[in-house]
C-alpha cells in the first residue's frame, strides 16, 4: 500500500523548487522507498540492539590540539561573494 507523502512540504524543507511533474515523480519514488522501509519494520527485532553505525567501533577521538586552518583569501575566493574577510549572503529568515 503506497504511503502518502506531502512532497511539497518535503521540498520546502529542503529549499528546492519542483515542478508539478517532478512533484508527482518524486512522490512516487519516495513512496517506494517508504514502502520498503515499512516492510523492514515488520521484521521481528525484539532483543536486537539498535544499530546506528555499520562498524562495531566506538570512541574514535582526536586530542584537543590546534592544527593549521585554511588560508582565508583562498577560502573566500571560492565563495560567490565576500567582503572584508566575511562571506556575504542575502539576508535570510529561517522560515520564509
Amino acid at each position, binding site marked *: 500500500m503506497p504511503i502518502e507523502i506531502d512532497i511539497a512540504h518535503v521540498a520546502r*524543507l529542503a*529549499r528546492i523548487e519542483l515542478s508539478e511533474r517532478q512533484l508527482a515523480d518524486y512522490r512516487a519514488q519516495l513512496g517506494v522507498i517508504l514502502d520498503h522501509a515499512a516492510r523492514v519494520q515488520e521484521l521481528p527485532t525484539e532483543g536486537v540492539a539498535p544499530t*546506528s*553505525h555499520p*562498524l562495531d*567501533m*566506538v*570512541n*574514535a*577521538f*582526536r*586530542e*584537543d*590540539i*590546534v*592544527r*593549521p*586552518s*585554511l588560508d*582565508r583569501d583562498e*577560502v*573566500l575566493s571560492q565563495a560567490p561573494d565576500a*567582503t*572584508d*574577510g*566575511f*562571506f*556575504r*549572503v*542575502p*539576508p*535570510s*529568515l*529561517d*522560515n520564509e
Partner: protein
Amino acid sequence: MKWEPVIGIEVHVELETQSKMFCGCAVDFEAEPNTNVCPTCLGLPGALPVPNRKAIEWITKIGLAFNCSISERSQFHRKNYFYSDQPKNYQISQFDVPVCHDGWIDVTVDGETSRIRVNRAHMEEDTGKSIHVGESGRIHSATETLLNFNRAGVPLVEIVSEADIRSAAQARAYAQTLRTVVAALGVSDAKLEEGSIRFDANVSIRPTGTEAFGTKVEVKNMNSFRSLERAVDFEILRQADILDQGGTIDQETRHWDEGEGVTHSMRSKEGSSDYRYFPEPDLLPIEVTDEWRNEIAATLPELPAARAARYMGLGVDADSATSLAGSDALTAMFQSSLAAGAPAQVAANWLTGEVTAWSRRAAIDIADSALTGAHVAQLAGMVAANLLSSTAAKEVLGYVLAGEGDPETVAAAHDLVQINDSGALESAVDQVIGENEDQFARLAGGEDKLIGFFVGQVMRVTGGKADPRAVTDIIRSRIG
C-alpha cells in the same frame, strides 16, 4: 483568573577547549574573521568530523556536577535546518541519547531552596556569527548578511531543565547557580556578555492548581541575569493578559528587546520533526565506561554549594557564603584572608561588600587587583584594634585596591590612623571643654543632646582621627 507560570531554561555553554569540536581549528574569538576555518567546519564535501576527546570529558564533568546519569553509550544526530550561520545546513547535535540525562540542582530564592530537575545535557557544535547589514542593523530590515565561521564548530553543551521553575526570580536564580557551577568546573569562561553562556526560557502559564501545561513560548536574546528575569516576568504578564481576554497563545519564539522591555515575535517555531533528525553516519557512538567516568569524577573540584556550606560552618552568613563560593576570585581571596588570620565573617563582609562594589565600579577583576589576603587580615586587625574607624577603613581599602600599598602603610600615608592613645584623647577632650565652658555647664546640667556638639568638636580638633565612642566615654567621665 490566577495563573501559575511554568518555566524551563535551556542553557548553551561554549567549552573553552583549544580546538573545535570536530576539527583542529583554534577556538579563538579575537581572531580576524574566517581565519579559523577548514573543510570540516565549513562543511565542504568529503570532510570528516572527528570528535574532540576533551569536549566529551568536559560534558561528562558538567553532567556529574549537575547530578546527571552518564549514558554508557550515546550518539550524534544531524539536526537539519537552513540558516546561513550553519554552513552544512545541519548542526551535529544529539537527539535520543545525550551524554548526560536526569540530573538536578538546588536553587535558593529568598532563603527557600527548590530542587530543579535537569532533563539532559547534550553535546553539539556552535554556529557561525552573522552580522545583519541594513539601515537599523536589525534582522527584519537587513539588506545583506556577513558571515564569520570562526565560531562554527566550537564545542557547545546544551543543558535543558525540566519545566520545574515557577517564577522569574527562580529562573534567574537557576541561571546564576548554573553559571557558578560551570565556571567552577573550569570548562568555559561562562561570560554572558561575551555569549559564552546563553540562556533561553520556555514560558507558559496555567490556571493555578491545574496540572496540564499551557502553550509554551520560547524567549531568546537575554544577555544578563537581570534581562532574563525581566523577560520572563514580561512574558508571564503578556500571556496572562491574552488568556484573561479570551485569546490563545501562539507557540512561537519571541525576542527580548532590552531597550523597550518587551518581547517581539520572531518566527513560528518549526516542530521537532521538521528538523529531520537522523543518526550522524560520519561519527561513531560515544562510550563513557565506568572507568572513564570515575577518572573524570576524580577531577571535579569542590562545587559552589558544598563550598558555601563549608563557609557557613565557619560562621559566615548564608548570603555572603553563597556570594563567596560562587566566584573563583572571591573564593581565592577569602581562603588567603583566612590563612593570614582574618576572622571569617569580617573577611566575608569586606569581600562581598566593599571589594565587590569596587570591582564592579572599576571594572577590574578582583583577581587582577592589588589586594591580597594578607591585606584583608591586616585591615581587619586594625579595625579590631580600634586603629581605624569603619569609614577610614573603607578609605584605606580603596587606596590598597588602587595599589598604593598595604593597609598600615596607606593609613599612615593618608593620616587615617585613629588616635588610640587615651592620654592624647583626654587632653583633646579637656581642651574642648576649656574652650566651651558654658555649653559644658549645660551638658552637666542635663542637656544631654549637647554631647553631640562636644564629640564633634573633639573630632575637629583631632582632624577626625578620634574614635567617637571613646570620646563620648571620656566626656561622660568628665561630667561625673
